[in-house]
């Protein structure tokens, strides 16, 4: 499968900052929010699994700890995303791409490791 990049770059456009592109405020804000929400998800899973009163409290809030957990993740994602939208992004777009990848690997690996060990 060809991975050739088509479009302006393939047409020989100069590799200027505009051609390379950056993430606009909305994409950058929700990208940062996704990084935080993914890490938050793993940390919350660790803490509630290690500390029963939190698990019980979360179950009490919605009827099941897992429902509360999911809603908390989405609240972090949307809350932080909308908050960051109104602020200029301090992240370089490419760093944010790397941060998403690292968060997915660390978050997923952290969950698997936790449930192997405990």
């Amino acid at each position, binding site marked *: 499968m060809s991975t050739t*990049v*088509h479009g302006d770059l393939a047409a020989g*456009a100069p590799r200027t900052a505009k051609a390379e*592109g950056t993430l*606009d405020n909305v994409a950058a804000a929700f*990208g940062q929010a996704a990084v935080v929400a*993914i890490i938050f*998800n793993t940390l919350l899973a660790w803490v509630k699994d290690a500390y029963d009163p939190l698990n019980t409290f979360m179950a009490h809030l919605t009827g099941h700890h897992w429902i509360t957990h999911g809603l908390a993740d989405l609240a972090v994602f949307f809350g932080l995303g909308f908050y960051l939208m109104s602020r200029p992004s301090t992240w370089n777009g490419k760093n944010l791409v790397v941060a*998403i990848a690292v968060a997915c690997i660390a978050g997923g690996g952290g*969950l698997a490791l936790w449930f192997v060990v405990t």
Partner: protein
Amino acid sequence: MSDIVLFAHPTFGVLGMVAAVWVFVETLNASEANQARIRMAAYATTACIVLAWLLGGYWYTTFYAPEKAIILKGPWPWAHDFFMETKEHLFFIPLILAIYLPIVATRKLASNATARAMVLVVSGFVVLNALAIEGAGAVINHGVKIAFVHSGVKGSE
């Protein structure tokens, strides 16, 4: 009703994964011509993964408890202790990514290398997570089955 919900959950998970593969492949060849298809596939990914979450969540919180007890009494208790515990929390990662995907996929990908890289990473991790979760679901299902076989319930073998 329980079985319909149970089978609809991985079905939408697989459809979401296929839609994410579609986004990935289209983005490798991003141009003005396929921008609309990328956008449509990104929305399809979101819709399918959100439906998989809602259906799986409803089944998990309503019907799973008796199956958990069966698994824990069987020879594969780790089908719950490791696979279900990891799966139920891991699921939130592709959920967040699937919701984020159309936000970045609706940018002008043909002329924006950073947005293109972001879409490739996000859709790629949706696929990898979905594969892991589908595999974990199969192990959990087999954990119940093997517990019945082990218990000697007539006809289970």
